[in-house]
C-alpha cells in the first residue's frame, strides 16, 4: 500500500510538472514563434506607450532576454521559495508560494487566487451535492423500473439535460426567476457563508441549479447504465437467493458496485470545477476563479493566466490522486497490480 501511495504521488507530481512546463511554453514560448520579442513581453507590463528604451530596460529587469529554460526555472523556483520583482520604482515582495506577480494589479497572483477560491468553492460544493444526489437517485429509480413511464421520461429529460448549454439555462433562469418574478438573486452577488448563511444560499441558488442540471443529467445516465449492469450480475442473484430483502440487495449489493465508477467521475468533475466553473460564473457574473481567468485572458495578463491555469491543474491532479488512493482502499486488486 505504501509503495502504491508513493508511486501514485510521484506520478501526480510528474503530471503537474509537465502541465506547468507546457503552460509556460504556450504563454512564453509560443508567442516568440509568432514573432513576439522580449520587448513586446516587457510592453505588457509597462504599457505599449513606453518608449523603446524603457521597454528594453524592463525586458532586462524581468529577465525576458534569458533563455526560456532559465525563465521557467525562475518561475518554478518562486513557487517554492518566493521571489522579488524589481520594477524600477520599487521592489515588490512575492512570498512563497509565488505563482507570479501581476504588474497590472500590483498584486501577487496567489493572493488573488485565494480571494476567489471561496466563491468557486461555494458554487462547486452546493452544485455537486445537488447533482450527485438527484443524478444517482434518478438513475437508480430508472434502472429499477426499466421501461416504465418514469424511466422513459427521466431518460428523455436526462438526454435533453446533457444537450443544454449551462449559459443558456442560466440566462433563461435569470429572465424568469429574477427579472420576471423577482424571487431570486439577480446574480453578480456573493455573500460569504460566515457573514450570512441564508443570504449565501439565496444568492447561489440559481448558479447551483444551473450547474447541477447539466451534471445531474449525465450522472443519471451513468448510474442507470451501471445499475443495469450490476443488477444482472451473479452476486446480486446470490444475494437474492440468500433471502435478503430487495432493499438490501439494491443498496448494499447493486448500488455499491455501481457507485464505484461514479465516484471516480465525481472526483474528477469536482476537481475540474474547483479550477473555475467558467461558464456558470460568467453567466451569473460571480467573481470566482473562472471569472478571474476570463478577465486575465481578456487583459492579456500572462502571470495571472499562468497562475490560474496551474491552480486549476493542481486541483484536477489532486482530485485524481485522491480518487486513485480511495480506489486502492476499497479494492485491493488495484494496489497489487
Amino acid at each position, binding site marked *: 500500500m505504501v509503495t502504491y501511495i508513493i508511486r501514485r504521488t510521484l506520478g501526480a507530481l510528474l503530471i503537474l510538472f509537465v502541465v506547468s512546463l*507546457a503552460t509556460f511554453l504556450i504563454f512564453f514560448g509560443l508567442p516568440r514563434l509568432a514573432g513576439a520579442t522580449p520587448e513586446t513581453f516587457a510592453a505588457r507590463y509597462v504599457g505599449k506607450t513606453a518608449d523603446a528604451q524603457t521597454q528594453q530596460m524592463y525586458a532586462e529587469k524581468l529577465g525576458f532576454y534569458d533563455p526560456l529554460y532559465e525563465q521557467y526555472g525562475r518561475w518554478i523556483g518562486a513557487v517554492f521559495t518566493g521571489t522579488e520583482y524589481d520594477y524600477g520604482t520599487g521592489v515588490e515582495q512575492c512570498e512563497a508560494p509565488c505563482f507570479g506577480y501581476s504588474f497590472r494589479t500590483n498584486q501577487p497572483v496567489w493572493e488573488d487566487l485565494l480571494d476567489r477560491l471561496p466563491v468557486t468553492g461555494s458554487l462547486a460544493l452546493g452544485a455537486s451535492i445537488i447533482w450527485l444526489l438527484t443524478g444517482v437517485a434518478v438513475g437508480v429509480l430508472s434502472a429499477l423500473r426499466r421501461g416504465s413511464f418514469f424511466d422513459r421520461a427521466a431518460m428523455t429529460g436526462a*438526454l435533453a439535460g446533457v*444537450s443544454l448549454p449551462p*449559459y443558456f439555462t442560466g*440566462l*433563461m433562469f435569470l429572465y424568469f426567476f429574477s427579472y420576471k418574478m423577482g424571487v431570486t438573486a439577480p446574480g453578480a452577488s456573493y455573500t460569504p457563508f460566515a457573514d450570512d448563511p441564508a443570504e449565501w444560499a439565496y444568492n447561489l441558488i440559481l448558479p447551483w441549479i444551473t450547474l447541477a442540471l447539466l451534471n445531474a443529467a449525465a450522472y443519471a445516465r451513468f448510474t442507470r447504465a451501471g445499475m443495469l449492469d450490476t443488477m444482472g450480475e451473479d452476486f446480486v442473484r446470490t444475494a437474492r437467493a440468500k433471502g435478503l430483502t430487495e432493499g438490501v440487495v439494491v443498496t448494499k449489493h447493486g448500488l455499491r458496485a455501481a457507485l464505484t465508477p461514479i465516484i471516480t467521475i465525481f472526483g474528477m468533475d469536482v476537481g475540474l470545477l474547483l479550477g473555475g466553473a*467558467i461558464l456558470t460564473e460568467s453567466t451569473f457574473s460571480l467573481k470566482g476563479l473562472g471569472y478571474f481567468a476570463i478577465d486575465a*485572458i481578456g487583459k492579456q495578463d500572462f502571470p495571472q493566466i499562468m497562475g490560474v*491555469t496551474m491552480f486549476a491543474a493542481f486541483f484536477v491532479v489532486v482530485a485524481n490522486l485522491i480518487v486513485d488512493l480511495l480506489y486502492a482502499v476499497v479494492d485491493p486488486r488495484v494496489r497489487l497490480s
Partner: protein
Amino acid sequence: MATSTDTSAPEATQAPVKAIEGRSLGRIAWTRLKRDKAAMTGGVVVILLILMAVFAPLIVGWLGHPPNEFHQDNTLLAPELGGLPRGDFLFFENSGISGDFLFGLEPQNGRDLFSEIVYGARVSLLIAFLATLVSVVIGSTLGVIAGFFGGFVDTVISRLMDIFLAFPLLLFAIALVGVLPDRAFGLSGNSLRIALLIFIIGFFNWPYMARIVRGQTLSLREREFVDAARSLGARGPYIIVKEMLPNLVAPILVYATLLIPTNVLFEAALSFLGVGVQRQVVGEPGVTWGGLLADAARNYTVPHFMFFPGMAIFITVLAFNLFGDGLRDALDPKSKR
C-alpha cells in the same frame, strides 16, 4: 411441447423456405436503426441542419434579410425603450417577431435574428465536424498503436493521455485562442481563427477517442483471426490495416458521432466567452450561436434574443446525441433496449 401431428407433418405441405440471405453488420445495423424512431428523428434533423448551413444564403434570401443588414427605423425599433424591437409575440415581449422577421430583431442594431441563426449553423457545424475529424485521426492512430504494440509505447501514450486529461480544457483553450496573433501560417482574421479553433478543439479531445480505440485494440489483438493472420506470415502494419481496422470502424463511428455534439457545445462556449469566430461587417458574417447568446446576456429583458440561439444549440446537440445513441445501440450486438 410440439404436438405429434406437427412433427409428423409431411415436408411437402410446408411453405417454401426462403433463401437464406447473408446479412452484413452494416445491413443489420441499418435495419435496427430504421426501427429506432428517436435516432431517425435525430438523423433527419442533422441532415436538415447541414442543408441549412450549406444553403444559408438561399434560405435567407427567401425567408429573411441579409444577416449584416441593419433595420433601425423607428417603426421597427423603439428609441424610447433603448432600441428594443417593437411588437410582442406570445410571451416574447419586444421581440419584433412578424412574417417579415420570423425570429424577431436584435435590439439596438435591428439585424434579422432568423438570418443570423441560419448563418450560425455554418460556423458551428464546420468547426464541430472538422474538429471531430482531427480527434478521430489523432485518437485512433495513437489508440491503435498503444493497444497493438503494448509495452513501452503503450505506457508513454497512456501517460500522455493522463496528462492531457489533467489540463483544465476550457480554460486552456480560451487562453490559447486569446494569446495567439492575428496573422499566422499565411492566414488571417476569421479563417485563421476557424483553423485554430478546429485544431485546438480537436487536439484536446483526442485522449477520449484514443482510450476507447486502445481498449478495443487490446481485446482484438488476442482474437483467433489475428493469430491466424500472424501464423500465415502477416506483419504488424498489414494486421492493423486489414484485420483490426475493419473491426474498429463501428466504435470509432459511434464515438465520432457522439463527439460532434460535445464539440458543438465547446465551440459555442468559446464563442459565448468571446474568443470564438468574430463577427464581420462585410462578407461571410461569422455569426455564432454562442456569440449571439453573449449579446443576449447584455439584453436579458428580451427573451427572444436568448431563446432562439439557445434553442439552436440545444436542438443541434440533442439531434446528434439522439442519432449517436441510436447508432451505438444499432451497432452493438449485445444492446438490449
